[in-house]
């Protein structure tokens, strides 16, 4: 019985290939979006977590801007006074305070002019921060010892691909008219911004920008074994005494992770919402196709009833057909979704974001649920037109042209 019905369905689906495929595509897009979100959701979270962990577990980041949304104020231009931040070094348990600042500057190499982010650092602290907390090493060259020497360290991408010719250790580049020697090149960090940055000693940075005695942010390195949360509170108290920046954030690794997690889940929620809407659009598509195709086949329904098909036969025929359309759409959507997620993963890898997608972390049970769901969506959206079709009096159906 089922075999025969399936046969009839496939025949009639193939008789209207364009209509059938258009409907299936409607479902495919909805399912594909859901699958991409499902497949990348875990990867994005893992990537963000591992990126955050690179900062190290005993680091407090001090930035201007409200804690609830530190990202917007990060580029707001508010700055701390240097002495306020340096004062933090007196808090017991603090190993050092590394002041940081960034600015965009013009650089020149081999007659080629570009502009890029310049990061102001103190070499000693910088080296410790990168090597200990983030596990980033120099690929070539050496760490400069002299705080005032005209030497820079390049991010991996700056050296390899910013200019037509790759920049080598020992060569000179010109930053804002000042000739600087390339002392070292970092190994790839895995994040666009950090790989595209030039590190420069604080004294030269300040003389080039003209911004003296101010700092964008500070990394407070805590001694091993010290209570990081207690120190964070003391940092906050100390900073409340300064009068330049009103809103500031004191971020411990724990807090950063929580904020990032919140942002991620909001993004995920929005994406799931979009996916659901496209799924509904797909379902409406099936309903529309089923409705018109039932109307189109009114006469054939009459024929089938005339030769002995019961109402239930007609109903199951049409429900099976819409179910098949849903199922095929689901299968193709899942395949395409995994394909797109895989491509995004590949692109992510080449851009330095690792572990976005892996077949091992795919939620196969979730995929099965999606497949089942599309079959149900197909059946449900076929229900109304199929019911209508099955209840027709054969003579009325036969008269239909």
């Amino acid at each position, binding site marked *: *019985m089922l075999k*025969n*019905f399936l046969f*009839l369905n496939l*025949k*009639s689906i*193939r*008789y209207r290939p364009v209509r059938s495929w258009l409907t299936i595509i409607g479902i495919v897009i909805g399912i594909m979006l859901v699958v991409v979100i499902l497949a990348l959701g875990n990867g994005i979270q893992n990537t963000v977590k591992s990126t955050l962990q690179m900062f190290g577990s005993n680091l407090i980041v001090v930035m201007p801007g409200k804690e609830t949304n530190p990202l917007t104020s990060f580029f707001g231009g508010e700055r701390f006074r240097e002495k306020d931040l340096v004062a933090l070094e007196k808090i017991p348990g603090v190993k050092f305070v590394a002041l940081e600042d960034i600015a965009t500057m013009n650089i020149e190499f081999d007659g080629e002019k570009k502009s890029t982010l310049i990061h102001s650092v103190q070499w000693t602290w910088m080296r410790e921060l990168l090597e200990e907390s983030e596990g980033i090493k120099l690929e070539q060259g050496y760490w400069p010892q002299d705080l005032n020497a005209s030497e820079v360290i390049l991010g991996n991408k700056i050296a390899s691909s910013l200019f037509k010719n790759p920049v080598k250790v020992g060569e000179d580049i010109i930053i804002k008219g000042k000739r600087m020697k390339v002392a070292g090149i970092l190994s790839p960090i895995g994040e666009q911004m950090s790989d595209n940055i030039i590190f420069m000693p604080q004294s030269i940075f300040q003389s080039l920008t003209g911004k003296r005695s101010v700092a964008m942010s500070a990394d407070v390195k805590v001694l091993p074994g010290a209570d990081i949360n207690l120190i964070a509170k003391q940092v906050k108290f100390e900073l409340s005494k300064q009068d330049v920046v009103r809103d500031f954030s004191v971020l411990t690794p724990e807090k950063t992770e929580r904020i990032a997690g919140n942002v991620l889940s909001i993004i995920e929620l929005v994406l799931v919402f979009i996916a659901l809407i496209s799924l509904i659009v797909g379902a409406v598509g099936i309903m529309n196709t089923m409705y018109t195709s039932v109307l189109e086949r009114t*006469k*054939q329904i*009459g*024929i*089938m*009833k*005339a*030769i*002995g*098909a*019961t*109402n*239930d*036969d007609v109903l199951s025929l049409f429900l099976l057909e819409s179910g098949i359309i849903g199922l095929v759409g689901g299968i193709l959507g899942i395949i395409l979704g995994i394909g797109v997620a895989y491509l995004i993963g590949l692109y992510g890898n080449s851009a330095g974001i690792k572990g976005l997608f892996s077949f091992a972390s795919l939620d196969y049970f979730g995929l099965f649920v999606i497949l089942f769901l599309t079959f149900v969506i197909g059946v449900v959206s076929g229900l109304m037109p199929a019911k209508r079709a099955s*209840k027709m*009096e*054969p*003579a*009325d159906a*036969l008269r239909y042209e």
Partner: protein
Amino acid sequence: MEKENKKQKIDPICGMDVTDFSDSPEAIHNNKKFYFCSNFCHDRFKRNPEKFSKEPLVKISNVWKIFSPDHTKTEVLKGLNLHIWEGDFVVVIGPSGSGKSTTLNIVGLLDKPTSGHIYLKGKNISTLDDNERAKMRSKTFGFVFQQYNLIPWLTAYENATLPLIFSTKKASKKKNLEHLFDEIGLKERLDHFPSELSGGEQQRTALLRALANDPDILLGDEPTGNLDSVTGKKILDLLIDLHKVHKKTLLIVTHDMDIAELADQVITFKDGRIIRNHETHKKAYVK
């Protein structure tokens, strides 16, 4: 209503209401009096009174069909009485809109009467529910339409065997059908789709489909109406062959008087009623 019906005089052969007839022939069998529409029916009765005093294969009793799609009412059948006997070749003629096709649809359970009853072998089938009607259609009736009504996405073979999908007992019937393919001569065209078949071939496919479930009654709604005379004749020969060799009961609606002349029984419709037609009765009798 029942009592009124008993006073009615119904011709047992053709089922015609002869209450108002002044010249209707009469006969007595087993102490029961019978009235006839014509000598034709009378003679038929006399030849086999035992058979014709029982229940006919199909009995249509006081059937009305009123179409009222908007507010205008159209009375298509006005109190129809009709008997069809097993093994008969019955031809229904009459002008368009006289209710021929509607009668065929109601007999074949494709349509419901507005009022009145239909009996099959004495069983009232007008009160069946949709499912029972479908099963009855599958078991008892085979349809051949003027428009062939084949499913365009199925091949000739698939079309012809389609009724078996909806039927409960099929294995034995499939064998029977293979045999019919030979007989009807469509063997080389079985893999073709309806759009690749000629009208005659399509109608032969439809005929095979009608016979797939080995029905008791074959219903044809102008089966040769869309065919040229030569092809129509071939289909007709097949139908008559089925009637003669396989003892199928045929009920054929037609405009074609050639078919009418070959029939056991000719029923003429006019304005939703059966009218007396001695002339055709006589013709059929003379044959």
